[in-house]
């Protein structure tokens, strides 16, 4: 883990009417690390994701990527700049094949169809989806769709990958596969910020964890520090850590 923060959030605030979803959140994501973002449901994690990736504009605060102010940029521009994301409820392009799905993102980065196809094929291979490349996304299982979504994000050749609950719904074997894949992704030079509920996975793979509760950041530290932090335990009200 190097000292520079590749992605930074400063004082981010987001309100929906009377509800304050993100309340003065500041965070650092360091190049090369795998950072976990946890918190009870409704803590504001996905909202924070949306603020970072441009799907929502913050009421206050800023987001910096490589020291560039990307606050308020449209989502596609942020994606092209180097911050890619997946969605909690996967959003595949259903009528298109797996290969075409990944090619879409690849095409955003490179001009030609051939190059895009190459990139897409390589990524499908990397995520073990090669044999499904000509299958319509609507025919894929939920696990395959999750992997497809990651492949699609990686086709943007991002420096940062934001994963929104990639592990939910997977069986233990699939979880291990996914964790291994994430490690491989990091080896390729991608910094990862992952939101998850499955504790064993988070503890396993993240070097650092930040915890949100009612829109605020309540704790930050290593997995062992977090699991013994009384504030965190209280927030989960006896949830399994």
């Amino acid at each position: 883990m190097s000292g520079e923060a590749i992605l930074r959030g400063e004082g981010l605030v987001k309100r929906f009417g009377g509800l304050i979803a993100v309340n003065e959140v500041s965070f650092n994501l360091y190049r090369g690390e795998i950072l976990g973002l946890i918190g009870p449901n409704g803590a504001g994690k996905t909202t924070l994701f949306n603020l970072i990736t441009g799907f929502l504009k913050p009421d206050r605060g800023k987001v910096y990527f490589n020291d560039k102010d990307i606050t308020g940029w449209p989502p596609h521009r942020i994606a092209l700049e180097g911050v890619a994301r997946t969605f909690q409820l996967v959003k595949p392009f259903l009528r298109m094949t797996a290969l075409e799905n990944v090619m879409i993102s690849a095409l955003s980065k490179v001009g030609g169809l051939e190059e895009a196809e190459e990139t897409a094929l390589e990524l499908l291979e990397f995520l073990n989806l090669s044999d499904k490349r000509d299958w319509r996304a609507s025919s894929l299982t939920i696990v395959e769709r999750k992997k497809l979504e990651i492949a699609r994000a990686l086709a943007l050749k991002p420096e940062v990958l934001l994963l929104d609950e990639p592990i939910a719904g997977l069986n233990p074997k699939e979880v291990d596969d996914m964790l291994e894949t994430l490690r491989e992704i990091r080896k390729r030079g991608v910094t990862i910020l992952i939101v998850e509920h499955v504790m064993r996975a988070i503890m396993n793979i993240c070097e650092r964890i930040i915890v949100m509760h009612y829109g605020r950041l309540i704790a930050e530290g290593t997995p062992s520090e977090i699991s013994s932090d009384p504030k965190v335990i209280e927030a989960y009200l006896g949830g399994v850590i």
Partner: protein
Amino acid sequence: MRALRMIKAELSTKAGRIFTAAAIVAVILPLVVRDQFFINAMMLVYMYSIIALAWNLMNGYTGLLSFGHAVFFGIGAYTLMLLLYRGVTPWIGMLLGGLLSAGFAFLLGIPFSRLRSHWFALGTLVLGEIFLIVFANWRAVGGALGLDQPRRLLLSPPSIYWLNYARPTPYYYLALGILGLELLLLYLILNSKPGYFFQAIREDEEAAMASGINVTLYKCISMAISGFFTGVAGGIYTVRFGYIDPYAVFSMMRISVYPVIAGLIGGVYSLIGPIIGSLIFVPTAEYLRAIVGGTLGSRFQGVHFASFGIVLLIISMRIPEGLMGWLEMRGLLKPLMSSGGGSDER
């Protein structure tokens, strides 16, 4: 070239062979059939096919349902006619009409791209009404009475330069030629980057944004292409009939709704669907108008258009995937140039 390989592959499928046969028939038809009414009817089918294809680029391929394509048609029609008054050949008139429509469509996309599907559709419907009102009250372009072609054209001998023929046959080939060109161009576009992006937008706009697509820009592009061909179709109408008025060229029922019904009958997820739909719907509608219209008189229009509504209702509730979609689902035929490839193995 990759494109040529793809076209060859497409044409060697079962559907492709049927298409090639049909295309050959279409080209030699006027040499074999003498009935001018029939030739004229086929010309109309091609003209409506041009609109339906263009409409479907927006709807079936980009997810933008429009009830206002008459706007693009009318702009094309008026542009050609007004340029004709200034002594400009209709060939240029058609091109400029298409370009003007395209430009307008592109600009329209900027505010309209924010509208979600329902509101977008309603907005286009409303736009059509607005154009009708404006042109019907705009005396400088003829107002409610419309515009006749310049008299000297009526008196000049027919020429390719002025496209002022008396028989329908030249217009038949004009429409057929443009339809062929449109089909080719759309096929190439849909198998290139913009085409992929359009379909991604149709499938899921947010995911498209997350994949680096400037959704607003590509929606505008889709609309511009769609507007271009529809505008050209308006030009074809103008040279063929030599007279235009706002109630004809900005007509919601005659111009905007026809491609919707044709597209739905034929199937919106392929390029060939709207053409098949036009082939089925247009002659039926026009035939009914000629036969039944006479007996019912002024009340007829109501019955005629209400029946469109019934047809639309039945199709959208029973077979929204259209004829081609139905054939595809039953494994009988993979329609020519269909969107979204791959197999559904499960």
